[in-house]
Each structure stands twice: as structure tokens, then as C-alpha cells.
């Protein structure tokens, strides 16, 4: 099909930029570890969350120097455990699931933003360099008390 000369230039520039952009995204995702949270094959029976390890004991445990593991359960309308506290500079590995409907897990002021699905286990890690009280909220509509669903992480 014949294309106008100017249109060829226009599309050429556009497609080149697109290819470059996708190459950067792909490199970041697959060789620099900056991929969206995509764990799977870590399923848990949503009816038995409270009896299934590690979700039978939600909480935060130290696993190394300034390195913590937080096991969390999202439910309508809150998170377990209710409060998390770590020293500044700590890295937290979050492991979580939902014991009822779909929830969100967003830490305001960070790039932590993921979905929590019943039956699936979500993982994400973040290093909290700045002290403060970080707001964690549910950003996926989950029912009538959705706007009250939140918790905090205190970084000292």
C-alpha cells in the first residue's frame, strides 16, 4: 500500500520510539528485576487461610540485619497484623493473601501497589529508608467498608 512521504516519516519516528520504549521496559523487567508482581503457583485454599501456614500466624519477623518478613492477611475490611514497626533502612518482604474478596495493597508514598486475591499468594519487597508513618490502604473496591480498610507501618 502506498504511504504519503510525510506519513512514512511520522510513522517511522513513532514506531522507532515505540520499539525503543518497549526494549527499555523489557530490559528493566527481565534483567534488572523491575517486573510487576507476578508470582504464581503459590496457591492457598481461601476457606482455610486461618489454618494454613504461614497465614495461621500473621505478623512481622526479623530474618536478618534490617531485613524483615511480614505475613499479612487482607480481609473485609482490614489487614492482619494491624500494626507493623521497623527501624529506618529496613527491607520488608511482604507475603499476603485474602481470606474473602479481592483487595488492594497500596503503600502511599511508595511504588508498592498490588492486588490481593483469594486463593493466590502475593509477594513484594520494599526498603523503607525514610522514617515516618506509612499509610497502607485498600485500593480495590471490596464492599461497604472499603474506605475504612487501612493499616500503617511505622518506620523509626
Amino acid at each position: 500500500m502506498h504511504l504519503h512521504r510525510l506519513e512514512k516519516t511520522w510513522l517511522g519516528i513513532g514506531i522507532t520510539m515505540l520499539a525503543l520504549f518497549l526494549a527499555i521496559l523489557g530490559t528493566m523487567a527481565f534483567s534488572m528485576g523491575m517486573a510487576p508482581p507476578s508470582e504464581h503457583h503459590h496457591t492457598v485454599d481461601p476457606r482455610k487461610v486461618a489454618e494454613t501456614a504461614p497465614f495461621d500466624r500473621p505478623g512481622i519477623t526479623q530474618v536478618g540485619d534490617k531485613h524483615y518478613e511480614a505475613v499479612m492477611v487482607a480481609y473485609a475490611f482490614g489487614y492482619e497484623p494491624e500494626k507493623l514497626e521497623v527501624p529506618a533502612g529496613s527491607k520488608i518482604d511482604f507475603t499476603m493473601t485474602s481470606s474473602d474478596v479481592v483487595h488492594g495493597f497500596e503503600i502511599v508514598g511508595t511504588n508498592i501497589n498490588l492486588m490481593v486475591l483469594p486463593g493466590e499468594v502475593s509477594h513484594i519487597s520494599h526498603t523503607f529508608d525514610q522514617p515516618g508513618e506509612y499509610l497502607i490502604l485498600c485500593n480495590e473496591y471490596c464492599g461497604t467498608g472499603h474506605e475504612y480498610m487501612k493499616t500503617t507501618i511505622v518506620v523509626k
Partner: protein
Amino acid sequence: MIPTFDRKDGKLVLAHVLFAFAALLVGGIAGLLQGLVRGGMVTLPANIGYYELLTAHGVLMALIFTTYFIIGFLYSGVSHTLGGQLRPAARKLGWTGYLVMSAGTVLGVIVILSGKASVLYTFYAPMKASPWFYVALALVVVGSWLSGFGVFCQYRRWRREHRGKLSPLFAFMAVVTLLMWQIATIGVAAEVVVQLIPWSFGWVDSVNVVLSRTLFWYFGHPLVYFWLLPAYICWYVVIPKIIGGKIFSDALARLAFILFLLFSIPVGFHHQLMEPGIGGFWKFLQVVLTFMVIIPSLMTAFSMFATFEMNGRAKGAKGLFGWLRVLPWKDVRFFAPFMGMLVFIPAGAGGIVNASNQMNAVVHNTLWVTGHFHLTVATSVALTFFGIAYWLIPTVTGRVLTPRLNRLGIIQTLVWCVGMLFMSGPMHIVGLMGSPRRTAYTTYGDHPDAILWMPYHVAMAIGGTILFAGVLLIVYNVIALMRAPKGETVYPIGEVAEAAEATPRYLERWSVWIGIAVALILFAYTIPLIDMFRGVTSPGFVTW
């Protein structure tokens, strides 16, 4: 005098258009209230829930207003360009589709307003609504299929009677739009009929959540192209005629539509980037496929401005931008869609951010996303549809647009743009700051970060109020169009520029394009789906 539009077909078109604007009015009232609640300006009486309103707003605006208007508009163009009237079979399918969809809509609205389905228009399992909500959705989808079959029927008969001839551009584009709709709605139909209806009636006790979300988004992204393509039909086919110019290239217009058919479906994972249960490779693959639609979008932008510039130069415009001055700025039939085109530039750029794999974490489920689709569907598409109404209603009812209504139309367009600036602008900014979408008024226990969002929420409420004035004005204009003076309005269909190349025939070889579309879908979805079938299931919950 012979009417310029078949009167029987006109009734079918008008029925769709009026239903659409009725949905816009009711959805607009819900939207106004939501904005005021979220801005902390009003509190709802105890018997009205925020999320009921949100569900009604989403369903009525995103599903009902759009689908009815689109089907009415496509039938009008198909009737006009494929023989001047619908065949009895096509017209009958159009009316049957209309009745089935309307039955679904009425049932759905009753269930939503009675508080039995506050699950929003995405109805994510395992939130379990009343089974009648899902039945209502199924009726709307099945009705839209019947309407689609009517258009296919008209098109096939025309081609059989005009062997070897190129079909009219409008009809070709209508067929692409509805083909995409048929292929995409298979996903949501499977979700609703196979998973949700048996589960909500209690015939099965659990539902595969990851699978249901995937089937929904297999449909959910093409849905946005189903809104957009009819607006593109107006831009490609109607606008050149209204400005007194020619279509830049018939072949490129068709190629762009074929590319939309191929690349708007196998891309649903970019709505699921932040969730578990889907491998990172498959997410990235669908991100790449998503971005392929940038190519036809760039082609469309080029064609539009080429049409404007060629038209201006033909009228003697000088200088680099002199052609801008000769555009009919005071004609609402041009001005409203043109503002839609302008808004589509930032809207499209925002969409690229949303689909950018890991970058989605910054904006996922924040008000940024709400701001984004209020630019795309609620401005680019809605303003184009409004612009269409100013000639479509007079054409099908045998009336004429008066200068007064034209002026009111220009005002309505400006009101809409100002309202959207105040609403969507703050939504984008406060979304980047983290404020979640789909959330009633809250300060999260007066958390300092959430308090900082409040001024933006107030601005959104002001913008929403201005937009509601815009809704009232367009509804008034539609009613006034129905009472406009009698006369004949010609259906504006553009002609192709003489210099344009002939259209290659392979663009109309449907088996090839449908085959490629299906192959791409199978490529993008088969392995992840096999994986999902092995996933666990969840019981249902009523959390509202």
C-alpha cells in the same frame, strides 16, 4: 419531497439515541452525587449507598449510554450507505436487539438501586451479586449481538448484490467495530453465563477468581475500543464532509481499523499487571501487543490533520498554520468532535503510562486511572457522540439544526471541557499522590497524606458539578432537536480525495483478518488460561 433518510430506520436509530441520553441523565445524577460525597460536601441519606451510586454511574455511562448510542449510530450509517434502507431482516434484528438490551438494562437498574448488586460495573468475583444482576448483563450482551447480526446481514446482502465493488467506508468500519465486539464479548459472556450465573443461583458453590478476572479483562479492554471506533468513524468519514473537505485516504482508514481489530483484543493482562496468578512473561507479551495499537492511533492522528490541512490549502490558506483558521469553529458538528480529538492527545499519552508494565504500579487503582478514562471515553468519545447527535437526530427525524441550538451546542462543548479540566486534572494529580479510585469519602483516620488529597477532591466535586450542568444542557439540546423545525438534513458522508490511492481488496478479506485475530488471541491467552484452570476456587461473599 423524498426524505433523505428512511423513516422506519429513523425510528430505530432514534429509539437507541434517546435511550442513550436517558441513561446519560440518570448516570449523570449518580456521578454528581458521588463527586459531592467524595469532596466531603454532602452526606448521603442512610438509605442510599455511595457504592450503589458508583455501580449505577459506571453501568449507565460506560455500558448503556455508549452501547445504545453506538448501535444507533452504526445502524444509521449502515442504512444510509448500504442501499438507503435496512432490509426487513436487519431492521427486525435491530429492534429485537433493542428490546432484549432494554429488558436487561431495566432489570439491572432495578437490582442495582435495590442494593442487591453493589459490585460496580466490573463485578469482580468472589463478591456475589444477586443472580438477576448477572442475568441482566447477559441480556444486554445478547441483545447487542442480535443488533450486530443485523448489521452483518445488511452488509452481506449488499456485497452479494454488488460483487467486485468496494463497500462504503462507513459500512466497513461498522462491521469491524461490531466484529471486534462479538469476539470480545465472548469472554464476558463465558464469565457471566458459565461461571457467575450458576454460582450466584447456588448451583455450584465456588468460583475460580483468577479465571473470572481474566475473562472479564479479555472483554474489558476491547470494550474501550468499542467506544472509540465509532468516534473514529465520525472523525474519518463524517468530519471531512462537515468541514467541506475530502477523506485523506480510504485505504489507510481501513488499514487502521483492521489493526484495531487485531490488536485490541489479546491485551487484557495490562489491566491485571499488579495481580498474582499470571506469569511475568505473559504480562509483558500482552503489554507489547497493547502498544501495537499506537500505530493505527498515529495513523489516525496523521489522517485527521492531513484532512484539515489539505482542506485549508484547497481553500487558499497560506502559511504553516493558516489552514487552522478556515476550519468551521462555529459549527458544533465539527467543534465538539474536534475538542474530543484534542483531548485524546493527553488521554492517549496517559493510557501509555497505564499499560507500561512495571510503571503501572505508580497509578494502578488510583484516581489517575479514573481521570484517564474520563478523558478518553467521557470526553473524546462523549463529545464526538454529542457532536454526532446535532446532525443525526435532525437527519432521522426530518428536521434541521437551528443556529440557536448550534450555539447552545458550542456552549455545551465548552462547559464540558471546563468541567473535565477541573475534574480530570486533579484526578490525575491526586492519583499520582496515591489517592485510590472507587472509594467513598475518607481521611483514613486523619492520616496526613490523605488530608493533603482533600483540596483535589474538592476540585473534582466542582468539576463534576460543572459537568452535570453539561449533562443537563445536552439533554435539553436533544429534546430541543426533537422539536426543531421540519426540514431535510443530509447525512454527512465524506468523499475520498482524488489523489488518494485505490484501496487494496485484501483489506476486505474477512476470513484472513478474523483468522489472524483469533491466532493472536490464542497465542496470548492459551498457556496462561491452561494454568488458570488448575487454580483454586473461592466461595462467594456479600460485603455490602
